[in-house]
């Protein structure tokens, strides 16, 4: 097993953090986009970091840790959503108005609500592609599928989104 370090001061004392710390902002953005709540995104990030630390022996030394860490964050978001199923139901009951403070200040409420109604798997690939700017190759790594399959998943998710806001997304 390789215990890795990165070129920061932290590497002197904490090789794991030196490798993962630069990924935390991306992990937080992913969690925020998936959960739509600052507090829940922070919880998800903290849990994901703990999980990553526990699972660090599985981290491949010679590949980028970014997809690996984002996979853990995405999985944590999924679990948090499941554990608060009641709040998802509540949102489904209130499709016409903002349900969280974050909703209320969203810059594009129609698209925001459409995203909220998307299944987790569709929302995830769209967030990875259009919010985190991941390449299809990296999306494939996060999802454990080929680059081609990742492209297909993004297109499927866009089709679902079109069903919600068809007039806006014809060429996306």
């Amino acid at each position, binding site marked *: 097993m390789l215990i890795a370090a990165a070129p920061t001061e932290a590497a002197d004392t904490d090789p794991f953090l030196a490798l993962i710390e630069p990924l935390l902002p991306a992990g937080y953005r992913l969690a925020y986009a998936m959960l739509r709540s600052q507090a829940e995104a922070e919880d998800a990030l903290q849990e994901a970091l703990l999980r990553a630390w526990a699972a660090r022996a*599985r981290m*491949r030394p010679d590949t980028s840790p970014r997809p690996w860490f984002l996979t853990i964050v995405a999985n944590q978001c999924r679990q948090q959503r499941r554990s608060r199923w009641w709040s998802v139901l509540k949102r489904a009951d209130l499709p016409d108005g903002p349900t969280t403070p974050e909703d209320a200040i969203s810059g594009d409420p129609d698209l925001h609500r459409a995203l909220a109604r998307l299944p987790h798997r569709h929302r995830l690939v769209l967030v990875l592609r259009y919010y985190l700017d991941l390449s299809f190759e990296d999306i494939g790594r996060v999802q454990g599928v080929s680059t081609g399959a990742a492209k297909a998943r993004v297109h499927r998710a866009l089709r679902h989104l079109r069903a919600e806001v068809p007039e806006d997304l014809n060429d*996306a």
Partner: protein
Amino acid sequence: MHENEFRHRFRASIGEAPDEAAAAQRAVATLHRGRAADEGGRHPRALAFVAMALTLLVLTSLLGPRIVRTVRTGGATSPAGAGAPPPSPASAPKPATACRLPMIVTDSRAVLSAAAAGADSNGMETETAGFVSLATGRFQADPTAVPDGMPFSRMYAKDVWRPQVYDTVLRRWLPVQSDEVSPDHGSYLYVDYSPLLAAKGNPFDSTTLHVYDVRKRTDRALWTYAGAIAAQWTARGIEATTTPRGGGQGLAWLVDPDSGAATAKGPAPPPDQPLIDRSYGIRTGGYYGTDGRGRPIIVEGGLNPGSHAMYFVGGPNGRRIVIHDGVAGPDAEFAPSGFAPDGDRLWMANVDGTAIWLWTERDGLKRFALSGVIQHDPYVTSRVVGPCL
């Protein structure tokens, strides 16, 4: 709408994640708190932290002390010294092309698939143990790599038997690391949590250190501790470190493998003791273990594909005995997944499953083409786990 315009709208619909830097800092602080494991029951996540600290403790106890001790003393320790692995029985190594190399192939694709599907629990890794014939370069699974009633360390209820090492004296696969095997190769140690955890963060009462006699097929519960135990078997006896249940000061112990008497030796080193050593001038890199003479095997450089990476054995007075100096990454020609000492030789498997490497200080690197394993898949890795037989 074009893609960039859609991207802009998409981002606007979600908005900027607030206080990004602060969120990252809080996550790091949470991890530090957990690793310090000094909050006991005051924090709802304390047990989760402890479980994770234990994971690190196990890893560190397996790998760290030996390496750190070696580095601190200048890398000139004898294999018979304290904490060193038992000398390899292959004192007169066979010619490289006339032997078989024990190797384990780990397939993690199911783990990634489960994570991608958002499953609540990760999929299981599968591990296949077998041998590479260096005459043909072909890997073949060994059907004798089966549990055969051999117990193994368990923390979680879902833990399964996995071959970890091929013992050259017993000539069988064992479910433990080589430094958990007794010096006479008759027994090995393992630990059991009670109760077994259903998930990370679940409470447990104690850990019991066991010794299993492989030849007699008998198991002895040696010592139970109200917390967690990580141990290795050295010439001195069983050297253990403990972490109290709920966190707190870890202790180092020497346990008599016959009587089970445990003698406290003082505070345990912190589980995340840094392994980077300035004596070799390493700013970025890591350790791969030790060679057959107990010298550290070090990589200096970045981990990202294309980064410069130098693999070397650490000699005395900061001297570097270079194994390979080149480019890192799974597509690089030399990308070892680990190093297996074998007398004066080091064996490595390339991470992409395409090659086995042999290195000696005198002759340098030699490459053997490998077949019979899945190649070029980032989630299938191979590692050599013993000397060539």
